[in-house]
């Protein structure tokens, strides 16, 4: 199949991670009483972002190894996945 599943997964989680972590940085600390005082938005957002980036990297590598597409090696994250 032409589309490596790891790219969309990686992109989705990178976006979600960024949103969540960003929200965690700027949000009012009062809302974290629910979550036992932990800023779960920031913590989990960062974890999701890392996971997302790993997926994108592996997805890119997987699709460049295969002969059908000669992707420029410089495109790591964004531009290669921009066209899912």
């Amino acid at each position: 199949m032409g589309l490596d599943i790891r790219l969309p997964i990686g992109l989705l989680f990178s976006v979600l991670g960024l949103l969540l972590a960003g929200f965690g940085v700027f949000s009012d600390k009062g809302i974290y009483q629910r979550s036992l005082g932990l800023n779960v938005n920031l913590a989990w957002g960062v974890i999701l972002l890392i996971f997302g980036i790993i997926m994108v990297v592996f997805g890119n590598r997987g699709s460049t190894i295969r002969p059908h597409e000669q992707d420029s090696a410089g495109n790591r994250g964004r531009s290669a996945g921009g066209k899912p």
Partner: protein
Amino acid sequence: MGVYALFVVGIGVGLKRYMKTSTDFFLAGRSIPAWVCGLAFISANLGAQEVIGMGASGAKYGIATSHFYWIGAIPAMAFVGIFMMPFYYGSRARSVPEYLRLRFDEKTRGLNAISFATMTIFSSGISMYAMAKLIQTLHILDAPLQNLGLPLSASFHCSVVISAIVVLAYVVLGGLVSAIYNEVLQFFLIVAGFLPLVFLGLKDVGGWGGIKAQLAPAYTHSWQGMGSAQTNLLGVEWFGLVMGLGFVLSFGYWCTDFLVVQRAMAAHSMSAARRTPLIAALPKMVFPFLVILPGLIAVALPAQPAVPFTGPRAARTTSREVVPTGRGLIPAKIDQTGNPVLDANGNAVLDYDLAIPNMLVHYFPTGILGLGLTALLASFMSGMAGNVTAFNTVWTYDIYQAYLHKDASDQHYLWMGRMATVFGIALSIAAAYAATRFNNIMDFLQLVFAFVNAPLFATFLLGMFWKRTTGHAAFAGLLSGTAAAAIHQGLTLPGGAAPGIKGGWLATVHLYPSEMAQNFWTAIWAWSVCFLVTVLVSLITRPRKESELAGLVYSLTPRNSERHLPWYKRPAVLGVVVLTLALILNIIFW
């Protein structure tokens, strides 16, 4: 949520250009790597029943719910991967009913195809209904609806329509690949949404030790007390559990249900297809920690005064009615007049289905709460899409092509598959609305499906491993097994229930301690009768020529050597690993 929906449809659009033939659409061109199929394999099953239902059972029955995984699903998945997949994948059948035609005859296939197609429609309808109901209960759509000036009662309709459109979009455009890709996405989302929940919950109650300290031992031991039905929360004794759930029901589901088998059949090679269920078994094994633990934590917590997010109405009623409150995070069921539902002893009936949603709302602040709810919705959608893709394949190949319009062009069937998707979803919507009107009809239908499904595994087992089995025998066996299930259910009754839909509508000759025990024994009876009748009829009917059965029966199929594969890719090795791990888990939570 918006980001998620965009991605979901985006995958469909991205894949559309690859959908050139009906094989691409229905079987994903047989080109998917094993790990992707594996994740889709469990994700397709991860519908409403799984996440909400297992959380609910976790709260109700405790860790014994894990039997559905460690005794139920895992051995069955190992079996289908090692022994059955070679016949499904190798026979070049495109669906499970088609295998039945190759192995047996047309009527057996017709019976299976029609009952399966109806079942998928209703399951997807029930999934849709449960999702819409949940959105309504949690008031997720209230704010946008108010902004648009629509009444709050539109929430249900909106959820049904939106979920239908999203699933429709990605299945019609990308077919099975799209459904599989989305299922993998949903799998990761569900994990991402629930993992922090389990972490926070466990931290709050003081870890597994904290749960143990809060709850009776029956909640935290899965096998202790299984000696007799009276000493465990499930109300089943070990024999009924192992045979009914572990053998008949689980093998019947994981080995014969096209919904899951279809995912493995999409794999790019025979060994990948065989690895699919085995790879799936690994995450499946740890799913109890994601879905059952939150339920357990919800009951282990001290009773809470109503969770603000469940909406103003629920909060008001619980604070006014002090006496019958819920337990832990689990609220009492509220009837239409806003009063808690009471059972015969005056105790509140708990709404266990809200265990997981309430946990999410209790622990997650704004932000990650959106992620948690998205994960929940993703689980509903993956269940729906799984049913819809299984339906369109069975409809097109086994009903339309077989009986209504033979010998059309491949393009025509591709078109039909897309149409079937549209009709399937339309019918699901109708089923969802039927469920709002006639709750009993849904119960009744699920009962009928249980009767139809219970004997199936006996037919497959005999068909694949005994070359003497004949088509007439398979057909007679299935019918008599279904009849046996119905008769058994009609003659028995779970304790505390009135005769009617719960059983006993013929006469009550035996009382079971619980509904679950009755279900398991119904399955055992159905299976045994089907097995016996199939064997007997096979012996008096003429068997097919052996040459016709090559690739369909175990003894007549050349074994593929797996020697060239590295050990971690050999199905047998993986199977042993999976089973050992399941055994260890059973012992830890004994």
